[in-house]
């Protein structure tokens, strides 16, 4: 894992000191809420329905055991004993008191964490594949590049007041797992014919009320030029992006209105003026950062055979192959049947931190599916890890299956929401369990957003639900066929919106239609493509 040097530590310290003064000025009445708002937003503090919310950055979703213990401590001491992991690989606390926030930030700084740029119209936390540095299928480890981008984007003098928020995702694998097609900038590590490392560059993807798949700007950008090229994209966007309409301010709208070709031309022209200068990424800095992400050592042995069917089921669903011998990737589902997607209690966080420390090189990841991952578990310890997770209520065997539902906080917490999300997710989770369809259906993604801002990523779900307020009634629109990773796709609206009860039934009906109509080995999306919407609509609307 990356460790701060003096420069990194100084900057975080100076920022927390500065914010402490700003909070004091607010609490004493010197600063109005109006004047305080832009300051708190740049430090991850939102005003939600009931209270302030603090969003803590988990850079590219990577945590150490010590860091996760600190997150548990904050949940216990300053919140109500739990934290909420988000689709942006961050964690949110829903109940902190404003007066405590400077203290929380100070404590986070002791484990090299912060809440900088987790909100506001700036470059947000860079996200990546949660299996980075562990998965067998990667071209190169994306984490050093994420760290380079994290630093470059922190307190950027030119890009802190963009037309709108800005999100960058990096993947090192063909399989993606970072949804680069629906980000403002998506980067895919690739090698050219000579074997040199670089990036395929995409821009203009996004979800929200106008979902768009990103356009490819470049097949190959040498790694040396990464920061110059990012600067060029951001500069073109910052100068030309719309500022008159909040809903048309994201880069996807600019790329679409200019056309990908014209946008690329402008970016390349700006890049020509920037490349090779001070923005050239130094070889030594890449070496320095990469040394923190060296390949892990092999585990102590293969997993023993265990008869327990629960263990076997969990292992076949939640455990993924590792790039190093006798190590395994373990996905910890935060989606128990009927639970709140993404929530973890302080005790659960501590249990995970302990397991990671004992059997997994003290490393934990947060996923955009709102789960946790133990990326480097010693394969010999898998049965022990399963027992420990089971004791903590964290051994739900549904990673990547229908019950692994993604949900935004919805109307229960969020002042933007039109409809509840979490209770619907809980209902669907119970209905899937009751239907007995989960095992038969296999890998299917279900995601719920409580409003058109799409924080629940419903556009890119195989089965998506969007909460809409229809004359005071909460109704839900079903979308089918979305894909987040790899060949990203936006789901298609299935038909008229449904009441909460019917929406839950509609999800089960969609699963049933898939299981009925699929051919051997066919994915949800492939089946839908072949049959068209009709059989699904019939199942949803004519039951």
């Amino acid at each position, binding site marked *: 894992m990356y460790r701060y*040097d003096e*420069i*990194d530590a*100084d*900057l975080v310290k*100076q*920022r927390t000191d*500065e914010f402490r003064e*700003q909070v004091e000025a607010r609490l004493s009445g010197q600063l109005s809420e109006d*004047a305080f708002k*832009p*300051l708190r937003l740049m430090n991850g503090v939102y005003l939600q329905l009931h209270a302030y919310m603090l969003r803590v950055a988990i850079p590219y979703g990577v945590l150490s055991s010590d860091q996760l213990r600190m997150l548990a401590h904050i949940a216990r001491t300053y919140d109500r004993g739990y934290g909420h992991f988000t689709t942006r690989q961050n964690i949110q606390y829903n109940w902190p008191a404003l007066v405590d926030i400077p203290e929380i930030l100070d404590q986070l700084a002791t484990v090299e964490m912060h809440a900088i740029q987790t909100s506001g*119209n700036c470059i947000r936390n860079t996200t990546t594949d949660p299996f980075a540095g562990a998965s067998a299928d990667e071209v190169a480890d994306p984490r050093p590049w994420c760290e*380079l981008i994290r*630093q*470059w*984007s*922190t*307190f*950027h*003098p*030119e*890009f*802190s*007041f*963009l*037309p709108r928020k800005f999100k960058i995702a990096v993947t090192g694998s063909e399989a993606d797992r970072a949804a680069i097609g629906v980000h403002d900038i998506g980067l895919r590590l690739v090698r050219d014919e000579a074997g040199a490392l670089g990036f395929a560059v995409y821009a203009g993807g996004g979800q929200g009320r106008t979902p768009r798949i990103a356009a490819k700007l470049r097949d190959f950008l040498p790694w*040396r030029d990464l920061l110059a090229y990012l600067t060029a994209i951001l*500069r073109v966007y*910052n*100068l030309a992006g719309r*500022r008159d309409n909040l809903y048309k301010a994201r880069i996807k709208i600019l790329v679409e209105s200019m056309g990908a070709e014209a946008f690329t031309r402008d970016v390349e022209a700006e890049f020509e*003026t920037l*490349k*090779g*200068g*001070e*923005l*050239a*990424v*130094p*070889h*030594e*800095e890449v070496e*320095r950062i990469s040394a923190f992400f060296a390949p892990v050592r092999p585990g102590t042995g293969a997993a023993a055979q265990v008869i327990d069917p629960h263990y076997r089921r969990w292992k076949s669903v939640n455990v993924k192959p590792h790039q190093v011998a006798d190590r395994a990737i373990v996905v910890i589902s935060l989606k128990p049947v009927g639970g709140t997607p993404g929530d973890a209690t302080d005790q659960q966080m501590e249990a995970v931190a302990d397991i990671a420390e004992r059997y997994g090189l003290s490393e934990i990841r947060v996923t955009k599916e709102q789960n946790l991952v133990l990326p480097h578990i010693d394969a010999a310890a898998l049965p022990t890890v399963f027992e420990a997770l089971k004791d903590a209520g964290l051994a739900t065997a549904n990673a990547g299956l229908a019950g692994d539902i993604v949900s935004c906080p919805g109307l229960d917490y969020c002042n933007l929401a039109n409809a509840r999300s979490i209770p619907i997710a809980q209902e669907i989770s119970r209905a899937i369990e009751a239907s007995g369809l989960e095992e038969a259906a296999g890998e299917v993604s279900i995601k719920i957003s409580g409003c058109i801002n799409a924080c629940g990523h419903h556009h890119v779900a195989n089965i998506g639900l969007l909460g809409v307020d229809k004359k005071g009634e909460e109704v839900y629109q079903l979308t089918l066929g979305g894909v987040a990773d790899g060949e990203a796709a936006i789901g298609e609206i299935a038909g008229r919106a449904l009441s909460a009860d019917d929406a839950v039934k509609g999800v089960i009906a969609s699963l049933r239609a898939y299981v009925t109509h699929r051919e051997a080995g066919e994915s949800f999306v492939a089946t839908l493509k072949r049959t068209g919407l009709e059989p699904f609509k019939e199942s949803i609307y004519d039951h």
Partner: protein
Amino acid sequence: MTINVALKPSDLDTAERVEIDTATSPDEALEAVTGQDAVDIRFASFKDGRGFSLAAVLRARGYAGQLRAVGDLLPDQIDHLTRSGFDAVTPDKADDPRWQRTGFSHAYQPDAAGAAPAYRQRTFAARKAKVDALNQRYRDASPDEILAAAQAEFRGRIAMLSSFGTESAAGLALLARSAPDTPVLFLDTKRHFAQTLSYRDALIETLGLKQVKILEPDPADESKLDADNRLYQRDSLACCDIRKVKPLARGLNGYDVLITGRKRYHGGDRTRLDPFEFDGERIKVNPFASLSEQAFAALFRSLDLPAHPLVAQGYPSVGCWPCTAPAEGNSTRDGRWAGSDRTECGIFDSARTTRARQASYRLI
């Protein structure tokens, strides 16, 4: 950089100002500021970050006058303002004491204020440490050993800089023998003797050099600054800037390490030269640094190399024809900029390099 926070526009000393707003396009802005001493960029809202990009673009394109931000700005934006290139601000609400706060101690990005970003500070420290360690080990090593150490350490980002002058063949021969794929950069100033160019081609052929890269002046610079081909008479420094310093700066992208042919016996700044050298940006490898003139001559003879055709005509060192003369002195560098106190063209001078990067922009 400190910023001038002025309560009223009249607090600033310049009377003539041009004002543009944040909606101005970069091209329009460049046109508007050309020839101006003082420019205001007006922010209708602190959220309108276009002003930061406009300032950055104007500074990058060489606008050197005063650049002031006016309008709805927050004290918390003072770092953003100075680092984007503003040197003054007149905010709508200037009475906030927070306008006096100092900025952060470090930065992660290069900026108009000129401080090195964290990644460059770290890199320069690493390069300096590397050079110290290599000098410890190779101070008395032979040219071949120094070249081999450089290849082992810096393969893929190392190039040789060669003038194809009177002494160049020795370095080229050693390189061709050990690592003929190493790029060799040659500055074609368009002011070379014909003999230098034919000698270059002959050496490429004889030695089997595979990667000679010719760096030429930007035609736009030539037509702007040297349309009459007499720049060397008016301003020989400017001539070197557009014909050597700038093309090299462009050509060096991707090369962190440069092999040079400099030797202590050249005198001037070179008398204390080490085999490895950090110039504040790049590493230079000087395999012949410590060789005496006699030892170098012996090496040259032992390699059985052709001589530069102009040696026979009494030129100990050959550069561009306008600034090179035959000489009878004792030093190899005699005859370069004869009659002036110049001893270097500037490509080994990082201050000159930085200045020259902006040379064409001085027109603004």
